[in-house]
């Protein structure tokens, strides 16, 4: 599992720094696994 997938938990609890958030949201847009796990909470 690549490191970016692991950030989904921190994303859900609003614990990403702004640069990490931008990076993760870009990833989220193209990753069905993370979208499902994050469940569209934001």
């Amino acid at each position, binding site marked *: 599992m690549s*490191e970016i997938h*692991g*950030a*989904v*938990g*921190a994303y*859900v*609890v*609003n*614990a*990403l*720094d702004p640069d*990490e958030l931008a990076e993760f949201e870009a990833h989220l847009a193209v990753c069905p696994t993370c979208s*499902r*796990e994050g*469940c*569209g*909470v*934001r």
Partner: protein
Amino acid sequence: MTLCSRGHEDAFTELYDLTSQRIYGIILRVLRSPDHAAEVTQEVYVEVWRQSARYSPGKGSVIAWMTTMAHRRAVDRVRSVSSEMARDERYALHSGDREIDQVWDGVEQRLDIERVRKGMASLTAIQREALTLAYFGGYTQSQVAQLLKLPLGTVKTRIRDGLIGLRDALGVEA
């Protein structure tokens, strides 16, 4: 919510009456200041009113949508205010599992409280600690890593595993 999105003020009033205590509670739990919490609560309802057309039932319940928004705004406020004094107070949080458990003991939400408490109890202490600091402390994952003197990857994993554990304990479908 559909009525709100069409500009029905009565529907919004009802929504406010039904949810405001809970929303305020979540925000207060993160901010620990009634004044700030009242302000942020107001901001949340302004956002709810403005964004109500963008709420989509497919994404989850109205209350989930609102509580997520409330938590995000509370955390944003913590980070923007972030006075050293308040920070120092919060640093005291990580001084042991017992204190962290007390944070959860104080959570006042009627229906789900017992289930959530049991769910939290089912996590390992290290998962609970990381999740509590991130969710209630409003810390970023890198701040949590600093506080606990752990590598970032470890914290990331604990937060995620903690959430997965909580989800499983609550019997929520993925």
